[in-house]
């Protein structure tokens, strides 16, 4: 099967104008700007097959949103090529965006003062969706995202989770083949996160929508993506199955323990002490060698503690570790 997206050697450098100090500087700035080059992408290449669901991750400023902007046609790269759905996104922008959906987790595309339903009917006109297609899309989205109760509510009265559900629906009314999700679970409560994830999974499995997901939430990646692309400093650091990321970064997890008495430090042969502040202890362990439950059971037998928490390493940590294993 031919690729849905084929990206080759994208580069992008931003020119940032520096502000000069003081009134004189501001005046000088009017005549001659002081600028600085900030490379955002330094040769990014990858390809995506139809029906894939890819996590596109990296620390802030790594070039994630630059890539997404280029792939969605709203930014022109300095060099490199991109073919997606048979278009060059930034060249055939209008034809291309008709076929894609984009969700930004932090911004809504719905009309703030209007009931959700009104936004949907306007989008229907914008994308020229015919009656039949609109009705069936609405029906499906309504039941998958439980929208019935929300449709007549003005957007400003929705909770963040409710709004995200509506935003997802809004981006899918025109049945796009390709969906970009930028931090779709950011700021959501635990239940909403689950609903959103479940929905994305269904969309990918049942409707075969290709999904590119950027996120800071490792759980999103775990729950959704079989393939991850890690980008850092404008270059792709790793592109492969999720397991590859795990093994590349190590699987170490953290166990945070709040002890009953300060000064007591639990010891276990399978865990390494990371830090100890008063009665707060942080241990690192490898879940492949000792499951969390077993470790907790052993500690509980020997020590008295108030509270504990198992932590996944954050994306930042994983990538920091990747740097360790993939030196430039």
């Amino acid at each position: 099967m031919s690729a849905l997206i084929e990206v080759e050697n994208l580069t992008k450098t931003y020119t940032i104008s520096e502000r000069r100090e003081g009134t004189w500087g501001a005046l000088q700035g009017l005549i001659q700007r002081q600028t600085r080059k900030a490379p955002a992408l330094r040769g990014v290449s990858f390809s995506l097959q139809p029906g894939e669901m890819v996590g596109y991750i990296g620390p802030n400023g790594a070039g994630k949103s630059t890539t997404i902007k280029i792939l969605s046609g709203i930014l022109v790269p300095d060099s490199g090529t991109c073919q997606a759905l048979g278009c060059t996104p930034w060249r055939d922008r209008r034809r291309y965006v008709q076929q894609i959906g984009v969700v930004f987790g932090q911004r809504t595309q719905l009309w703030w003062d209007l009931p959700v339903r009104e936004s949907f009917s306007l989008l229907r006109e914008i994308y020229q969706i015919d009656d039949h297609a609109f009705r069936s899309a609405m029906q499906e989205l309504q039941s998958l995202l439980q929208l019935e109760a929300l449709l007549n509510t003005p957007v400003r009265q929705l909770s963040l989770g409710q709004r995200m559900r509506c935003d997802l629906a809004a981006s899918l009314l025109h049945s796009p083949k390709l969906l970009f999700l930028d931090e779709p679970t950011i700021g959501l409560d635990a239940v909403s996160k689950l609903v959103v994830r479940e929905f994305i999974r269904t969309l990918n499995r049942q409707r075969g929508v290709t999904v590119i997901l950027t996120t800071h939430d490792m759980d999103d990646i775990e729950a959704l993506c079989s393939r991850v692309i890690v980008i850092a400093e404008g270059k792709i650091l790793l592109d492969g199955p999720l397991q590859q990321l795990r093994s590349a970064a190590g699987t170490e997890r953290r166990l945070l323990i709040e002890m009953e008495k300060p000064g007591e430090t639990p010891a276990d042969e399978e865990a390494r002490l990371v830090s100890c502040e008063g009665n707060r202890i942080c241990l690192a362990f490898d879940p492949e060698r000792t499951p969390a439950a077993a470790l907790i059971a052993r500690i509980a037998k020997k020590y008295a503690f108030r509270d504990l928490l198992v932590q996944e390493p954050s994306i930042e940590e994983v990538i920091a570790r990747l740097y360790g294993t993939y030196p430039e």
Partner: protein
Amino acid sequence: MTLRKTLRLVRIYTTLSFRSQLQYKTSFFLLTLGTLLATGLEFAAVYALFSRFGSLHGWKLPQTALLYGCISVSFAIAEAAARGFDTFSRQIKSGSFDRILLRPLPPAFQIACSEIQLMRFGRFLQGLAVLGWAEWKLHLSGTALMMPLWMVTGGIALFYGVFVLQATLVFYTIETPEIVNIFTYGGVETAQYPLSIYPFWLRSIFTFLIPLASVSLIPARALLGTGSASLLSQAAPAAGYLFLIASLHIWKIGIAHYTSTGS
């Protein structure tokens, strides 16, 4: 996109825009009253000046009121309809312009439709009242009434073009510099009086750079019989439309700049 579909979209956008604003009915009513009072008092000041000084470069009050009314109505309509361009800085900063680029419609069309502001209704009413009074005082009737209408539509296009240019500037500066007020509010204020009273440089700006004279002074003179009534003078308001078309072309350069720098 066919014309029918375009008109349908305009209608839907407009209804939605009105409906979302009508959620704040009292605020709308009070603001209308406020602008009506403010602009009404502004005209009262003009009236007071005329009753003190008699005339202005040979223009009596009713003749000046004709200019004043046309420009006021034009600006009120342009300002209401071009609200999306007027507040474009906000859209760039919040990132909602990216969303506009993600939709399969021309950006200028979406911005034009995105907000049609009812809040400036007060100025429109004032302008209409001043214009009506001037027409009555000048005994304009029949085909002579067509000229003010033609001036108003040319003026709407012209001011709309100014707002489009103001928004284009935002692609480069992010903020709307206060100085562009010279061309929007400044344009209204200057063109409410016959442009012939101003110093040469100011007259030149509003004749050649922004062709305000061709939607106000030139056709008004032709109508009032105080200047050339050639076909060219009568056709002058068309310059407003040409200005708008030119602005929309410059706007496209701005978009190209935005999509290549991603500010």
